[in-house]
């Protein structure tokens, strides 16, 4: 999967391109036919280990996709509703001005938008588009998959009221807060892709989708059901923008699961540092939705350290294969790198410190 080709094209503003339909229809047709032939060949006319692996790979890929896609769709629809119904001035008034307060607000915003790691990406992108400060969005993006009622409830169901639940929420907020603060202090320019940027700063409107721009132009003149349909259509554009990252992420996660034996990871040891590293790698590779990862973490309780389990529960929702790919739909590559490395370093530190207590 060539991300170089797929990543920037749909989101960079494309001025005066001819419709792709007129450019490469044959190429597409050939690729589709080839892809179909490969899939049919592997699925129906191959036997033995290769066919088994392909079947396992397909099942896991579809499993992740089917599990995650409702959340992405929900996040996209929320994004559409924000575009149509939330006034940018209101947002500007609600967001605190001081750096610390802003980062904290971002980290706690998950209570207002209960989304998981798939849904949070389109919502964050739309909020940026509405003028949300970069640092607030970063804190929101990292914290919201944990700091929301649904995930807190599922963690409670798995672990009960105790250090794991409290630690998960507190450290998620803390790490997101620190990351938001750092982004605020560093104030990087050009962190966002043009499509995600606050379009009021430019004379050229770069809405995330044509429908978003449409809504903008019409200035919300639609009433009642019309605005609702508009919100859905904006959400549809957002979904189509983001779903490719989810798909590529799911493909990678499924491939890792099919090719790398889990036992080699789990057998590596239970030392205070290595166990944290192992569960963080596992969280990254598995790419499990934050709404349910607590139940999986439960199965590690006896064989892994408390610090490593907390790292799994804090780091996994912030960053995993599919979410880091989805970040590419919002941020520039360098920013995405920071968004992966910062939580990684902080979660590692947290896990190791907890283990040494």
């Amino acid at each position, binding site marked *: 999967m060539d991300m170089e080709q797929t990543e920037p094209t749909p989101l960079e503003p494309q001025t005066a391109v001819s419709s792709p339909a007129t450019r490469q229809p044959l190429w597409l047709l050939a690729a589709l036919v080839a892809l179909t032939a490969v899939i*049919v060949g592997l699925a129906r006319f191959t036997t033995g280990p290769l066919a088994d692996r392909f079947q*396992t790979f397909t099942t896991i890929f579809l499993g992740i996709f089917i599990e995650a896609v409702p959340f992405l*769709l929900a996040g996209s629809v929320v994004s559409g509703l924000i575009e149509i119904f939330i006034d940018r001035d209101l947002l500007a008034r609600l967001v605190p001005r001081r750096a610390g307060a802003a980062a904290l607000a971002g980290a706690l915003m998950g209570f207002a938008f209960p989304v998981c790691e798939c849904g949070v990406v389109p919502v964050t992108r739309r909020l940026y588009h509405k003028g949300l400060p970069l640092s607030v969005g970063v804190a929101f993006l990292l914290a919201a998959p944990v700091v929301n009622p649904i995930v807190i409830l599922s963690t409670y169901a798995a672990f009960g009221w105790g250090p794991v639940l409290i630690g998960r929420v507190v450290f998620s907020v803390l790490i997101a807060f620190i990351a938001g603060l750092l982004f605020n202090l560093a104030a990087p320019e050009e962190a966002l892709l043009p499509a995600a940027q606050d379009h009021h700063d430019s004379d050229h409107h770069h809405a995330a989708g044509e429908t978003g721009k449409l809504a903008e132009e019409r200035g919300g003149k639609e009433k009642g059901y019309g605005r609702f349909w508009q919100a859905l259509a904006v959400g549809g554009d957002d979904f189509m923008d983001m779903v490719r990252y989810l798909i590529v992420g799911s493909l990678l996660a499924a491939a890792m699961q099919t090719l790398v034996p889990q036992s080699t990871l789990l057998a590596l040891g239970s030392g205070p540092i290595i166990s944290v590293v192992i569960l963080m790698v596992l969280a990254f590779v598995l790419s499990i939705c934050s709404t349910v990862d607590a139940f999986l973490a439960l199965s590690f309780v006896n064989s892994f350290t408390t610090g490593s389990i907390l790292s799994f529960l804090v780091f996994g929702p912030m960053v995993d294969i599919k979410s880091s790919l989805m970040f590419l739909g919002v941020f520039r590559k360098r920013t995405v790198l920071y968004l992966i490395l910062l939580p990684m370093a902080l979660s590692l530190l947290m896990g190791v410190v907890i283990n040494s207590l």
Partner: protein
Amino acid sequence: MNRLVKTLILFLLGAFLFVRVVDGTVLYYINQRFVLLTWLAAGGFVLVAASYYLVSGRHLHAHDHDHGELTWVGLLIVALPLLLGWLVPPRPLGAAAIGNREINLGSMGSLASVAPPQAGETMGLVAGEKNILDWLNDFQRSSNPADFAGEEAHLIGFVYRDGRFADNTFMVARFTVSCCVADAAPVGLIVQWPDAASLPADQWVDVTGHLAVGTFAGQQIPILVADSITLTEPPAQPYLYL
């Protein structure tokens, strides 16, 4: 064109989810408690696809250039789940997927604590009968494999064997799934059966027998000595839910 393709893809995604839910194969992929979400998503896709039609039908001409353009590479990527979903026959995870995972055989006291199994998961078994997971949970609470010797057991699972198995043993295995198959973990009981070697991997079997103390990979664990084995079709709900 762009809009039409998007509408079509959204609609097809909805149709794909809908078909999988209706024919029950969605349970090959996710825990049944998320099936409601799949229903909602299927409906959501159709609504969003419809919104394209409703909005764009009136205002398509209003633009001079398009954003959110779907490129061909993007289109190929988006087509992948549909292609894989429709071209590859749906099958639950089987013996081939075990090779990559840690098997839980319920060695004494080594099992992680798991939430109590929910009602309704014993589909295909007589209500109240213990499945593989229930037995493993029981084993874990005890410290002596002999505690269970002589108890009757009736289990449904698929056949798994590897190099560690003697000719007269196999494992009756299931996967536990808490979210989707990405977190699937195999569980199983070692079954003793004279013709074990003749059972093909992945074959679903219905095993009746009694428990005894046995040795596997140098460990004393409860094993199932089979009295009868019937070949069966995979159950509608192939996974066990934690």
